[in-house]
């Protein structure tokens, strides 16, 4: 029989229904694991001080009404850039150390309304500036598969929390790879909804034009359910779409992929990529074929251009978004910004300066439009495109040192889809050197149902979604 921390959302609900355990017991089980493993992994920055009281209330609700909310009693780990009333929120930055939010973010509000219970806040790259969780002002998170390795980032804490099974599900956010890349490095499922599908209100802004909240979970099924809960028009976010949210879980469970056309992006098989990683992607393509899909090679713009576009747009927006931390409010001065944050503010200030705006920001936006057009063209004939999430497995802690473009190089394969605002899943597709490798399945804007259905079919027909035995790895 599975242990409590191994259960998926549906399995937790099954357990509640059969009175196998209570929410308080489940929460205490996770708290014990957190107490035991967190000192080595540095995943949680803050724990919810009221979690037991809240679990007790949920148990009363279950006893009275049964399970009538989609995430009732599901213990979740929340990335520290989402404002949560009653739990300190810092975006892993010293400048916000001790900050207690005055309001609840839209997506955490929706999770709470669906009955979720928050265990605590997870570590991330400071202000989400990175792909390693190493730029956190509170130290790096360690990869549960090998604590000497990075978990990826910026949602590294949330991905590691799922991999280490310190929560049933987690919330992350992606600006360019920040959900998919740590999910890949930690060997779990990450899902980036379309930009504008889930509201950004109350999510500490990194790059406003690409920030997308999304789930990190054990399975595509869990990710689909959470995505359904957090999606929809947000009256407090003018960039969210009014499109009706589909019932994503109902699209899952396909036994084959007949009639689905998948593009294997040739440019994503980089020349300097490890052969064993390439091999896993080709095997995944073969798996799709065996499931009935048509897989053809497809060509996209060289991903290095996406890196250029993303670097300029994101730094520009960062320099502006962080201006509100002016040293007058929030209790800390601007010199408490970390190195990477300062570097991004400087670069962004430069690219927006008069005389440089046209050469950098404006040109970047023009290339971005070209990229979107190219994807639109491809998705006329293809249902999805696939490739590796990251060029290789998790790197060693310390790898970001003196590598200001570290994140961009690790995210080279996911930045294009982020810049174009697409939806994409990361699912485990094998191991190299005992470390997981992630496969991205990317679909056109607002094709969440399709991206999730394809990923679900792949996941259920493979055995790569595994969890490390912490007593052995740590």
């Amino acid at each position: 029989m599975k242990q409590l921390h191994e259960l998926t959302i549906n399995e937790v609900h099954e357990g509640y229904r059969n009175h196998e355990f209570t929410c308080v017991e489940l929460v205490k089980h996770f708290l014990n694991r957190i107490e035991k493993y967190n000192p080595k992994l540095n995943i949680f920055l803050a724990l919810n001080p009221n979690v037991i009281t809240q679990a007790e209330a949920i148990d009363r609700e279950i006893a009275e009404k049964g399970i009538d909310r989609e995430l009732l009693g599901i213990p979740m780990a929340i990335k520290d850039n989402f404002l949560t009333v009653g739990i300190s929120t810092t975006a892993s930055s010293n400048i916000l150390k001790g900050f207690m939010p005055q309001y609840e973010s839209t997506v955490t509000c929706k999770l709470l309304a669906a009955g979720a219970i928050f265990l605590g806040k997870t570590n991330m790259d400071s202000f989400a500036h990175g792909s390693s969780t190493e730029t956190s002002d509170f130290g790096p998170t360690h990869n549960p598969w090998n604590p000497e390795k990075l978990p990826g980032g910026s949602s590294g804490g949330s991905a590691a929390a799922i991999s280490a099974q310190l929560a049933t599900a987690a919330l992350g956010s992606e600006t360019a790879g920040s959900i998919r890349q740590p999910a890949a490095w930690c060997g779990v499922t990450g899902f980036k909804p379309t930009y504008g599908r889930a509201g950004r209100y109350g999510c500490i802004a990194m790059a406003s034009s690409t920030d997308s909240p999304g789930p990190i979970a054990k399975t595509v099924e869990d990710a689909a359910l959470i995505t359904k809960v957090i999606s929809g028009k947000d009256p407090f976010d003018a960039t969210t779409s009014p499109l009706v949210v589909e019932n994503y879980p109902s699209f899952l469970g396909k036994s084959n992929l007949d009639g689905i056309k998948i593009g294997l992006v040739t440019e994503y098989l980089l020349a300097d990529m490890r052969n064993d990683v390439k091999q896993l992607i080709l095997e995944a393509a073969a798996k799709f074929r065996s499931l009935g899909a048509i897989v053809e090679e497809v060509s996209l713009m060289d991903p290095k251009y996406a890196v250029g576009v993303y670097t300029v747009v994101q730094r520009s927006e960062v320099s502006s978004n962080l201006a509100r931390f002016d040293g007058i409010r929030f209790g800390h001065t601007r010199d408490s910004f970390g190195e990477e944050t300062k570097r991004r503010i400087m670069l962004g200030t430069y690219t927006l300066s008069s005389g440089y705006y046209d050469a950098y920001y404006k040109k970047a936006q023009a290339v971005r439009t070209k990229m979107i057009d190219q994807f639109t063209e491809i998705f006329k004939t293809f249902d999805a495109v696939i490739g590796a999430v990251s060029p290789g497995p998790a790197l060693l802690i310390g790898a970001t040192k003196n590598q200001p473009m570290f994140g961009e190089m690790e995210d080279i394969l996911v930045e294009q889809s982020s810049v174009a605002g697409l939806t994409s899943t990361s699912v485990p597709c094998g191991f190299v050197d005992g470390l997981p490798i992630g496969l991205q399945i990317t679909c056109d804007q607002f094709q969440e149902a399709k991206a999730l259905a394809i990923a679900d079919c792949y996941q259920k027909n493979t055995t790569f979604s595994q969890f490390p035995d912490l007593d052995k790895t740590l």
Partner: protein
Amino acid sequence: MKITPLIGLEVHVELETKSKMFCGCPADHFGKAPNTQTCPVCLGLPGALPVPNQKAIESCIKIGLALNCSVNRLSKFDRKQYFYPDLPKGYQISQYDQPFCSVGFLNLDSGKKIGIERVHQEEDTGKLQHTVLNGEKVTLVDFNRSGVPLVEIVSMPDMTSSAEAKEYLKKIHEIIRAIGVSNADMEKGQMRLEPTVNVCIENETGIYYTPLVEIKNINSFNFAVQAIEFEIKRQVQEFEKSGIEKTATNKTTRGYDSVKKTTFLQRTKEEAKDYRYFPEPDIPPFIIEEDFVERIRKEIPLLPDQEIFSLEKLGVEKKDAKILISTQNRLAIQIVHDYSRDDRIDSKKLASLIVNGKLNPAQDVLVQYRNLTKIGITDTTQLTQIVQNIIDGNPSIVAEYKKGKTNVVGFFIGQAMKETKGAANPKTLSDVVTELLNR
């Protein structure tokens, strides 16, 4: 030597919408306890996002249309970035290269057209209060005003005297009030003025332009006039001394000291800010459809100049029409229009009586008008005949009068008025009635 001042004006108007520009807080901030009308958005808290106020955008477009501007089909907001303690986000949401409205004009009474360059939407800042607290000099910030919708109206440098500038400002003020988007109360800071001034000097050696000077944040028409006049004199003197001409980079910013009636240097171009404008990523761009613009156009009432013209057509003198319009005496304007179809009343006279405070438009207009103008039946012989008949027919009421019940006078006046179908001059009639009753 010929001196021609060149004056352009930037006018900021706070809109009187129900809520602020990008959040649901009330926009009416005047006299409210500090920081009681704030929320995460207008406080610039982490994670907060702006959602544009549709009503404010409609008001902005309404101002543009009233100033004969074209409404741009594609428009967007931009971030204007600078650090100041009253600016909680570190940037102001404004409009840079695609404002809601561009290129319009406003006619002065002389018939001269003053070009309008643009009308754009932005948000107001918080307010700083420099004060002493517990014996310590401190600066406090009140964010009630933060995020209040602000419209900026930028003119071309088409005005050539302080008088033209004043007329332009007064007309803008009247238009804003007439279309109902703001009371534009100068004392409450709802309308703020920034003249940009330089001078064209023609002498025997050639034609020269003095460097541009922008005068910041003036809150009265008279101060604007004084500041412009001071600046014209100063620039001519300065030019005579230094011979420095306008270049692309030597624009300066000056403040106005209303006590000394002088301007003073605030900032030179070297210190000028680079605002690092870029498109506001939190607000999608706007596509403004023609039928939306037409709907707003239909909501615009007759503008002050049009109203003055329509009163003039009734025969009202221009100076009286202007007073009625500028004081927004809606009842009086209505009455002048209503009685213009009444042969017994001369519109020119009626308007003049109202303007001079002799006739109260809230009371019986005809009676007052007749009293004041002595028209109607003033023939005492004819009235005596009529009144005598009524007295003869009502001996009991006459008896009451004799007993001291003097208010029955009204009865006789009323009856006589009825008999003359309202044509009797009330004053003459009243005199006749009293005289006959006392006989």
